[in-house]
């Protein structure tokens, strides 16, 4: 009996590969296993190799695994591309339709199951993925009934008959496999899971759910991979709360429309990926200058330019911190797990309103689209804080000669009182031009200085729950591993392996990218011999940020990967050993 295994299904895009993986994973999630799935897909609609790699475990896991136990292939290309990932003694189950073959020098077990044929016999070849799932459950020794609930949910609106046929397909797949293999094969039986209910979701789902829970009622956005799921979820959900989503003509409109709506008092967000964020740079400056709260999600993908739109990368870091001309207060947050993505989405909204500035919620393709089991979220941690805005407040008349409200009053904490249009005695002017306390344009040097200082001072007191997630086991470490966003999983998996090889390893995962938590990081760097910054980019952006903010350049080493694929745990282990 084993505690975890890795399963992959592959074939041509548009052939149902996704749903095969999806149904398999959902069923196992229901049984209480921890699932982690990562799709390999490309920038085209139909055709082209796609695969979905799913890790099943009895404990939490957030990284793809080094090797593979079972490969389900709908075409020979899937075998050719993926077979080398299989562990010694791994299993390939291919559709007998294409006469699957495996390289002779590999010790893998090949089974050809007539996926398509069985499905066609049952009525439609579309059900071939169900047959494949059946074969899978035979390998794992899972009862076919495990799938019933999921199959019912998916197909019940098509009628009981369809449900039945699909279950039959699963059964036939299992039977056929058992016949071929002569009963269960060794080493693939999973220990029983805890049976607890968990969500099965991608990072983008968590972010979108966080936004709904955090009070977002309007969104303006333009579709783009890998951000679109956030928009799609809100399109479905916001109407339940009276809210809505506008698909704008471009990202500039999306961002400025969000600014307009936030100014008018509604928590409004937009989301995009690199190209869209690059287009929003001027608007971000407007939010910073006018002190209108704004939350923008950047789901990083392979860059630059259109780059590798369906691949993993973490290369927007610098642009998110420093993009936009001039100087504004801005917060950049980077959740490192799907749970954090949820809570951070809520918190981003709070910070934006409390500090009246743009907040960028940075994620990456692996975190945004990787689908995994997530413990139920804590309702009590969902809190709405609007800072100095109280829309129900009755404002006194002001002493300004025009009756204008001092929306940009210079205060000690740098945060001015905030009112929204419609409030009596709250009239003021908002402008991206430098302005005085009521918002009237002003070029007076002394006023300029005061307003600049006010804006830039407000983040000095930023309260942020856990700016750095730390796993500090050693007072003096050989290696401090540093990362952000989705690399958390792979680093956590590499750590025990490095420890096993005798290294003392600490880990700091940075969640507040800007303003940078230098005070938190300094002692960790001081107490490490080598600092290895693990990043999916080519120039070591986070490492540079560390250097700028903390120093100790000679200690800081880059561990980079930028070929579009996420790190594997073994890569991190190997490269760390090279670097120390």
């Amino acid at each position, binding site marked *: 009996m084993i505690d975890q295994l890795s399963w992959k299904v592959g074939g041509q895009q548009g052939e149902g590969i996704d749903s095969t993986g999806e149904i398999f994973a959902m069923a196992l999630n229901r049984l209480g296993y921890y699932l982690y799935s990562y799709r390999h897909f490309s920038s085209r609609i139909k055709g082209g190799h796609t695969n979905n790699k799913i890790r099943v475990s009895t404990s939490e896991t957030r990284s793809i695994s080094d090797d593979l136990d079972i490969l389900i292939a709908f075409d020979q290309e899937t075998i050719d591309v993926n077979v080398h990932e299989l562990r010694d003694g791994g299993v390939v189950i291919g559709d007998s339709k294409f006469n699957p073959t495996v390289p002779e020098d590999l010790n893998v077990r090949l089974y050809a199951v007539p996926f398509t044929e069985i499905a066609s016999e049952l009525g439609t070849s579309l059900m071939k993925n169900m047959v494949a799932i059946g074969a899978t459950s035979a390998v794992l020794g899972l009862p076919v009934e495990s799938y019933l609930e999921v199959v019912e949910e998916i197909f019940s609106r098509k009628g009981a008959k369809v449900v039945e046929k699909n279950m039959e397909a699963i059964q036939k797949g299992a039977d056929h496999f058992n016949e071929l293999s002569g009963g269960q094969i060794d080493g693939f039986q999973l220990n029983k899971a805890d049976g607890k209910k968990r969500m099965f979701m991608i990072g983008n789902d968590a972010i979108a759910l966080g936004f709904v829970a955090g009070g977002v009622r*309007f969104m303006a956005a333009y579709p783009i991979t890998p951000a679109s799921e956030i928009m799609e979820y809100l399109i479905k959900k916001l109407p339940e709360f009276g*809210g809505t989503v506008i698909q704008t003509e471009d990202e500039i409109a999306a961002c400025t429309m969000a600014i307009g709506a936030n100014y008018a008092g509604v928590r409004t967000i937009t989301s995009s990926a690199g190209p869209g964020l690059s287009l929003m740079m001027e608007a971000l400056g407007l939010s910073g200058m006018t002190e209108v709260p704004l939350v923008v999600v950047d789901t990083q993908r392979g860059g630059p330019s259109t780059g590798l739109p369906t691949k993993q990368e973490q290369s927007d870091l610098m642009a998110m911190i420093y993009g936009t001309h001039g100087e504004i207060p801005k917060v950049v947050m980077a959740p490192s797990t799907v749970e954090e993505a949820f809570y951070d989405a809520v918190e981003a909204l709070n910070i934006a309103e409390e500090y009246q500035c743009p907040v960028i919620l940075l994620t990456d393709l692996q975190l945004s689209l990787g689908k995994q089991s997530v413990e139920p979220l804590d309702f009590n941690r969902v809190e709405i804080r609007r800072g100095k805005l109280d829309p129900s407040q009755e404002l006194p008349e002001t002493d300004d000669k*025009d009756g204008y409200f001092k929306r940009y009053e210079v205060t000690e904490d740098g945060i001015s009182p905030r009112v929204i249009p419609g409030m009596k005695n709250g009239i003021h002017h908002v*402008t991206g031009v430098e302005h005085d306390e009521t918002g009237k344009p002003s070029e007076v040097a002394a006023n300029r200085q005061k307003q600049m200082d006010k804006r830039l001072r407000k983040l000095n007191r930023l309260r942020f729950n856990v700016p750095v997630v730390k796993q500090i086991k050693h007072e003096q470490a050989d290696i401090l591993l540093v990362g952000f966003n989705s690399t958390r999983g792979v680093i956590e998996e590499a750590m025990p392996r490095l420890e096993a090889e005798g290294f003392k390893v600490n880990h700091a995962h940075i969640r507040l990218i800007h303003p940078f938590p230098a005070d938190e990081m300094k002692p960790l760097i001081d107490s490490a011999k080598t600092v290895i910054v693990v990043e999916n980019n080519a120039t070591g952006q986070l490492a540079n940020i560390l250097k700028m903010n903390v120093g100790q350049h000679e200690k800081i080493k880059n561990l980079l990967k930028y070929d579009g694929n996420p790190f594997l745990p073994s890569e991190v282990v190997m490269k760390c050993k090279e670097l120390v």
Partner: protein
Amino acid sequence: MATFKDFRNSIKPNWCPGCGDFSVQAAIQRAAANVGLEPDNLAVVSGIGCSGRISGYIKSYGFHGIHGRSLPIAQGVKMANRDLTVIASGGDGDGFAIGMGHTVHAIRRNIDITYIVMDNQIYGLTKGQTSPRSDVGFKTKSTPEGSVESAIGIMELALTAGATFVAQSFSTDLKELTSIIEAGINHKGFSLINVFSPCVTYNKVNTYDWFKEHLVPLSSIENYDSSNRMMAMQTLMENKGLVKGIIYQDKVKPSYQDLAHGYSKEALAKMDLNLSEEKFNQLMTEFM
């Protein structure tokens, strides 16, 4: 009830003496009072340009945005709080050069805001370059030998984008302009009002006198029917766009607000943001 004086503040506009924008400002202030608005229920959103300064000169909530983006900002304001009256405004460069895409899309989206363009056929603030409304042959700082690009027929263009309210006026006709702005505010949906507002400093061709000579009032056209889209188009084409009055209005089509699925009748800005625990659990369950 507020009078037009309640929409005034003490700021002296930094426009050149004689600039057409002064009258546009006055017309907006009068129209706001005439339709019964209170200053704190009006939001004036503007772009960047001489004209864009207008949001600071009207006593109301004002948002002076960035160049070319007054419309998306204004639409955001309205979506957030449908109880507000929202006026977007700016120059011809702002709306028809850098902002052209937003203008077309705001028209087709038909959110209930009023867009007033101060069209002087030139870039004022940057000291006199050609605009998309400059006539062929017009000499400017950027076209010293005369512009060679066609001027956009903006009123016709609006019709092709699905506009439900299209009007044109002239900044000195304070009375007409005021009443058109009132009609625009009262219109349920997006209203586009293009106002010829002469730049006395940089446009020495399209002057007050020039417009007086060239503009044809629609009221002078017999049986003109502003609900007839085809007639509107024909009249515009025949008069090279140089007409004034309400050119077209569709009084039937509901605004975006009324069509958007699930969009609440209560202003979003006034709603409670908190979710019940029950609802929250239901949302979680959907992922299980």
